[in-house]
Each structure stands twice: as structure tokens, then as C-alpha cells.
């Protein structure tokens, strides 16, 4: 009667499975499926083209805004085991290639051998590192690191922090304290980078929201993209929080880092 065709139940189920399995979440997936139902689309190929375009409305590319010739401070934070320390090594290498003078701060004074881990990376990259004894106050390490960064005329200071669950009030207070210290040391270019694990499900949104509420997040890096999880939580995060994704971690080696690109990210959802 209307001349158009619609997808059959089977096709819609397949599409829903693709969206959900990509960790896009039921809310956005259902919205997309409902929109799809109202269109005259008779086959899966056209449906996917439609969905790819719809998804482009949810996410955006963003520039990290880090320029040489001035002090930039990157505070790296996130929950336990997501890849913060490894990502710092990758980001350092990335900016070394661009001729940046870099300083690292071993702000994780809590976890066993966290300082040793970042130190090993700093040695591999031949980058100086500010560190104190285990159990030192992270705020004190940060304080010293910024003084040192200014004194040495560093372009980029990257601060590693201990993994912390956003549900732990005392740990989030510690983070707020670190944030306050950084702010009190001057008005240089500062970015808070949240690291999320690409294999994490819907909780990644709650993480982003919590850390953003606590200290503000300027950008996000999603790691372990090579595990073949699609990281679909990006759509919810960008739709609701409007936070740019700067980088993607694609492996355990120093060169396994890419700039976030929304088009290729969307392509991969359906590949």
C-alpha cells in the first residue's frame, strides 16, 4: 500500500544483535531500531548505511589541543587496570616524535611496583621521570613534578595516577586534591584524560560521568581496541557528556596508539 519495504523480524534481530554486541547499549540500540522501522528500507545493506549515518550524529572528532613551546599538563586517570600507565608511554612516544620535551610524574604511589613500571617505560623512551618513595602523597609528587616541568622548560608533563574505582569516595577525594594542586600551580594548558577499557560494558559510561563530575574530563582514550570489542559505549558517552575521544589503544607496544576517528570507528562497528 505504501510502496516501500521494511525489514523482516529476522533482519531487525540481526541488526539489533550487531548493535548490542558492540556494547552500544539497549537505549541507543532501541532508538536506532525504532527509527529504522519508520523508514522504507527493504534490505540489510541499506539499513546499515542508514544506521552508520545515524550514528555519526552521536559522536564527533576532537583535537586534544596540545601545542609545543608551552607547558602542557596531562593528568591521566581511570579505574584499575584499564591501561593508564601503558597509554602514558604510548602518548609520550607519540609526542616525542613531534619533537616535544617530555617529563613524566609517577603519581601512582600506591600499587605494587607502579613506580617501577612507569620508570621502565621512561628509561626505554629516555624521558626524565619525577618519582618519590612508595606510599608518598601523590599530591606531593605532582607538586614537585610541576615545579620541575616549569624549571626544565618542558612542553608536556604527563601525570600517572593510581587506578581508582569511581565508587570509592576517599580515592575520588584524593583525585580532587591532585586536581586542586595542579590548578594552584598556574594557568598553563591542562587536560584531564580519562582512560577506559574497550572491553568494558555499560559501566564505562558511569565511569566517565563520575570522573567528569569529580574533576572534569577533557578527553578520553579507549584501550584494548585490539581485543575486538567494539567500544560502543563511546556513543552514550559522547551523546550525554559531549567529551571528545582523543586516542585509541590498539595493543601493548609503544606504537599501538591511533588518533580517534569517528568514521573509521563507526565502520568497525559493522565490520
Amino acid at each position, binding site marked *: 500500500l505504501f510502496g516501500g519495504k521494511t525489514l523482516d523480524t529476522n533482519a531487525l534481530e540481526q541488526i*539489533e*544483535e550487531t548493535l*548490542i*554486541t*558492540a*556494547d552500544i*547499549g*539497549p*537505549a541507543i540500540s*532501541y532508538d536506532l531500531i525504532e527509527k529504522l522501522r519508520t523508514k522504507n528500507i527493504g534490505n540489510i545493506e541499506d539499513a546499515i548505511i542508514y544506521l552508520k549515518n545515524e550514528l555519526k550524529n552521536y559522536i564527533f572528532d576532537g583535537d586534544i589541543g596540545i601545542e609545543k613551546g608551552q607547558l602542557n599538563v596531562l593528568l591521566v586517570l581511570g*579505574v*584499575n*587496570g*584499564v*591501561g593508564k600507565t601503558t597509554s602514558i608511554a604510548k602518548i609520550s612516544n607519540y609526542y616525542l616524535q613531534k619533537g616535544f620535551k617530555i617529563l613524566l610524574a609517577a603519581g601512582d604511589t600506591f*600499587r*605494587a*611496583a607502579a613506580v*617501577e*613500571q612507569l*620508570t*621502565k*617505560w621512561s628509561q*626505554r623512551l629516555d624521558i626524565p621521570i619525577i618519582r618519590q618513595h612508595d606510599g608518598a602523597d601523590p599530591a606531593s609528587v605532582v607538586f614537585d613534578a610541576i615545579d620541575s616541568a616549569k624549571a626544565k622548560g618542558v612542553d608536556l608533563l604527563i601525570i600517572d595516577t593510581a587506578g581508582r*574505582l*569511581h*565508587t*570509592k569516595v576517599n580515592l575520588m577525594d584524593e583525585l580532587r586534591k591532585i586536581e586542586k594542586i595542579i590548578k594552584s600551580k598556574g594557568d598553563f594548558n591542562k587536560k584531564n584524560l580519562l582512560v577506559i*577499557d574497550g*572491553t*568494558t*560494558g*555499560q*559501566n*564505562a559510561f*558511569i565511569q566517565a560521568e563520575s570522573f567528569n563530575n569529580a574533576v572534569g574530563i577533557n578527553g578520553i582514550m579507549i584501550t*584494548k581496541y*585490539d*581485543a*575486538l*570489542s567494539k567500544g560502543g*559505549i563511546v556513543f552514550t558517552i559522547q551523546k550525554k557528556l559531549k567529551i571528545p575521544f582523543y586516542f585509541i589503544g590498539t595493543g*601493548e607496544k609503544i606504537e599501538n596508539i591511533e588518533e580517534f576517528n569517528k568514521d573509521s570507528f563507526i565502520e568497525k562497528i559493522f565490520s
Partner: protein
Amino acid sequence: GITKSLTDVFKNVTGNAKITEKNITKALADIRIALLEADVNIAVVRNFINSVTEEALGEKVLRSVSPQEQFIKIIHDKLVEVLGSSSQELKLKTKDTLSIIMLAGLQGSGKTTTAGKIANMLKTTQQRKILLCACDVYRPAAIDQLIKVGSLVGVEVFTGDKKDPIKIAKEGVKFAKLNTFDTVIIDTAGRLHIDKDMMEEVQKISKEVKPDEILFVADSMTGQHAVEIAKEFNTVLEISGVILTKFDSDTRGGAAFSIKQIINKPIKFIGISEKIDGIEVFYPERIATRILG
């Protein structure tokens, strides 16, 4: 959460009003969304909804005095049934011989920390003499980390040549026997389930030392791919148990249901903090309630 939304669905069903197929269908749709929001894998959700639909539409609920409670009970009990298992303890030999535990899983899931927790648990509850074995030769300072964990717990750490994980495991077991340890806990490097070489490595370690327990350590916040990941580890290794870490977060933990449903190996413990005592026995009832939200 789901209890509130189910209350809404059934709130017009009071007194002699009969619960209908229509409102049960709506309730099942709500449960489906709740489970997906909780990160339960979609294929697992579909199976679950299909298996409860029959029961929900059956005599028990439609004729029940309090159909809503009956319905919620069916859902909850079905979840617990899948999650639960009769064998949740570590199956170790007697202390007059050597028992071997091996941990494996994705990068950052909490293996090294869990190795310390298990060591602490066995030391304090069974007075076992434990040797930690450092088979992660890749991650910078991984061996340093296990050494520090060992010293926190008060157990020795075997590091061997720090180069060949299979050799280290083999030598570690030899060392344990010579020095009258009764338990060896092998920490392995984080690896992707799709990394053929690394999966082959962990399989070789397992074949070399033949662990009594092969524990798959997974992050409780894992999303839809928990199924793929667990499946592959279970194919490559004869997993004897699962440990879900970081349950002290506010993740709903649907990965627990997905993993148990798909590989049907007992979830033995959950990680509940970063500390060496941050491990506890897995209680299906509690986790079922949490997944439903």
C-alpha cells in the same frame, strides 16, 4: 531498578484481577532491557527470556495468589540456578603433596593481585606453604609487582630465568617440590583470547605443569564480549573455575551470568578490593539481585 519497574507493570493486578499474558510480556520486555543494561550477553538474554517465558505464562503465575511476586521469584531463581554451582571451593590435593594453581585472563583483569589474594587466603585458612611463580616476562615490572605482592602476603616468589614462561613454570614446580612447598600459584601474562601465539603459550604452560586448578580471571565490568573471551580461554585451557574481579565497583556484573551460562564452569570467587584480603566466595543470590538491578 527492575523490581520497581515490575511493580509498575503489575500494579493494576490486585485482588481478584487476573495477571494476563499481555502484562507478563511487558514484564519480560523490561527484564530483557534490564539484563542488557547489566551487560548480559544478548544471546544469553534471548535464551534466558525464552526459558522463563514458558514458566511465566504457566499455571503457577497465572493462577497464583500474588502473581507479581511469583513472577519475580521465577526470574530470580532461574538466574541463581544458572549462576550457582555445587563446587565452589578450590580443588587442591592434601598438603603432603604439591598442588598447582594457574591464573589466566585478559590484560589488566587482576591476575597478579588475585595471585596474592589466593596466597593470603590459603596461608591463613589452610596454613599452606605457598610459592608464587612469576610467568609474566613481558609487562614492564610485572615480576617486581609479584615480588612486592609476595612480600606483602609473606610468601616466596620464584622468578627463574625471567625469560621463558614455560621453563619458569617447570622450574618453579621443581623448586617447590625440593623445598617442601605444598602449593604453587602461577601468575601468567595478560593475553588476548584472539592472540594465537599467546594462547598457545598458556596452553603449553598448562600442559607442562598440569595444574589442579586453572582459574580464568575476568573483570566483572566486561561487556558483551565476555562470552567470546571466556569461550576461547575455555577451549584452549581446561578452565576449572572463574574469578570475577573488581566487584567493588558499581558494575551490574552481567558478565558473570554470560560467562557461567556459556562455559558452565563454577564461579569460585569475586574480587572486592585491591587489598590482599579483597577476595570472597561467590554467592549466586547476591549477584543475581545485583544483575537485575
